[in-house]
């Protein structure tokens, strides 16, 4: 049984790798010329490829009846923060970057964030989507905080 679970996890992992490898390759092919000044359309195409990768990942979860693993969430957060940091540093350090690329990149990042929020809301509903991040409530030691009519969810 353990072997079966491990094999299922491995197969899902391989499928997720396949989806992101393809989407990431296309995104890289489109984003790099866009960052080199080829035009906003290239950047839009690159972000569309990333959105397609995210949609593919959600589809994998839906078909296999799984959800994002903690490692995947952690990797996504690290990459997003690194990209955001790079955007801020490039805006401060690279001449002309803020004028030509800041807004398109910010719009792309916003589109990705909106896609994630849309997924969370449609998957969990508005309240539970918020509760995913609501770690403060988990730290409330009072038993009353766990009652359903007081918003408890333990």
């Amino acid at each position: 049984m353990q072997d079966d679970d491990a094999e299922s996890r491995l197969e899902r992992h391989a499928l997720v790798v396949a989806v992101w490898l393809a989407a990431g390759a296309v995104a890289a092919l489109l984003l790099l010329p866009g960052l080199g000044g080829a035009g906003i359309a290239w950047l839009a195409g690159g972000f569309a490829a990333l959105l397609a990768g995210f949609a593919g990942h959600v589809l994998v979860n839906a078909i296999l009846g799984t959800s994002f693993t903690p490692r995947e969430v952690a990797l996504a957060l690290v990459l997003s923060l690194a990209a955001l940091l790079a955007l801020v540093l490039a805006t401060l350090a690279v001449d002309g970057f803020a004028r030509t690329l800041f807004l398109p990149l910010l719009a792309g990042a916003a589109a990705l964030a909106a896609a994630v929020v849309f997924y969370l809301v449609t998957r969990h509903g508005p309240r539970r989507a918020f509760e995913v991040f609501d770690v403060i409530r988990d730290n409330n030691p009072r038993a009353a905080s766990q009652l359903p009519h007081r918003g408890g969810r333990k």
Partner: protein
Amino acid sequence: MTALLLTLLVFLASLGVYIASLVARTGKAGDPRGFLDAGARLPGWAAIFAGGGVLLSGIDLPGHLALVGRYGLQAGHLALGLVPAVLALVLVQKRLWLAARIAGLSSPVEALAGYYESVTLRLFVLTVAVLFALPLAAGMLAGAAGLLSVLTDGVVPRGAAIWGFAFALFLPAVMGGWRAAVLVLAIEALLLATLLVATAGLAELLLPGPGFPQAALPVPEGTLADAIPGVAQYSAGIGKETAQGGIFTTLAILSDALALMGLTLSPGMLLLGMTTHGGRSLAFGSVWVMAGLVTGLLLALAPLIVARAGGGGLPVLVVALAGEDPLAGAALALVLLIAGLMATSFFVTSGTLLVVRDLVMPFILPNLSPRDVRLSARIALALAFLMLAMLATFSPLAAAVFRSLALPLSAQLFPALLGLAFLRWISRSAVLTGLVLGSLAVFMTEPPGLILFEGLFLDLPWGRWPLTIHSAGWGLALNLGAVLLVSIFTRKGDERLHRDRLHDAFATQARVNLGGSAARGAKWSLTLIWTFLALGPGAILGNSFFSQPIFAGGEAALGLPSLWVWQLFFWLLGIPLVWWLAYGAGLGLTAEAGLRRERWDVRAAPVPGWIAAALARVTGGCGRTSPKSGS
């Protein structure tokens, strides 16, 4: 671009090792089935992607593009032959899958040998598997290595590239066996398809000047770039006589589709289907990926890429694209390289594992423990990749000569597979007679037979593919004729009862619903009409059907070559045909639940004397064994 390309290749190789290491860690320790056939529980998505990828790669994508560059759209038409090839796969795949579950005939070799109770058939299928695993794979490996050497301006020598590639392909297979090889292929297949579309689009966007169809295909003078050169040409064959306007007449295209059937019915592809978990993956993979995506990509993109490449060929296109965008150039180079390497990996791994499980285990080393079976498979894989690299490095000409036999000989298995799947009256004698005659016809219309016969005896009046008919066509014509004729006299032979038991099990456990007589008639007749118009003599209408409509009395300003539109039109019509069989008749739908394992007592025929004697010589009398089944 060299550093970028090498980085990408190292990344892909590392990814393969990473996936294989995960498989090796999660596999059931000591279970040889987990290593040899993934426990017949490959995930459906992996079979879908890997099957499509192997088809795209097995058609030899760089070779196909070069052929389109040399002969134009008449060669591009060959890709349409994938539709009937996939139809043939759909016809037999589910029954083979069922035979594995119901009767325990768990590989194509075992299924055919066990069903027909024939050692000869077992050896024939294994020979075909070895032809795919060594000469065909070596040719593709040598082609990929040569391309890498050219693209890196000799920084990576051809020999080093061959050994590097072989080692990179060997590692996932030896670590994780069949499951790892298929998972890695599936990942690469999705990457290949995506990058193929992306780089073709980038070439159109980035490169200056017009592309196809404004720019003509760079065919040599005297070759028709956008037309089929006739229904047939009375040519003695390649090497003896030059066909006017090109060699791809409608008969050549039709018979080449039969050769492509050899690809879809190759032992490796059949093993992939048989070791896949039940579900809708066979149907989805056949209809939407193989007949849909792969065929469409080849038909639509090949002329675009070739026209952009011009007379200089694909390396020139890669360099030109890299000049505009290094990453795009490296991506196109990666597409061309992994297209060759995926088929190499698949055919070597599947062929070796088949030899181990269907020759070594039952005949030579029958008393191995599960752990030893896995060890012997790993040793066999090491030997196979070593021979592959040696063949590609030191004898590429021999590989090129013998690889020509792989597809047409594999296609000769079609009557035997049809017998196993549906036609219980096809007897062992009929199949063997057909195989002998068909193989002889293939051998004598391909380079190995021609070189051998003309070297030993006298010049033959025909060359390769006489009358512009592919050797697979000559072979199957003789093969089918012999099968029909011999079956008339032997259909009620002694072994009929044995064959009936499997067909009765099929009928009781998984009856195929082909519909009523009208629906059956429509399936046959529409398929024949489609084949006649898309690939057969009717395809000649495509030369001018859309540019000079028959009743218009003038020219239509279509802006596209009529033949290209004809190809795309019949590709779109071909998908519903495959869908009808795979989904409509349920030939692509499988379910593990509800299947009963039947007792399948194969009469234990003795090991043939010559095998026993050969084994006795090698092992000093210790190797005499009785086969596990079916010989």
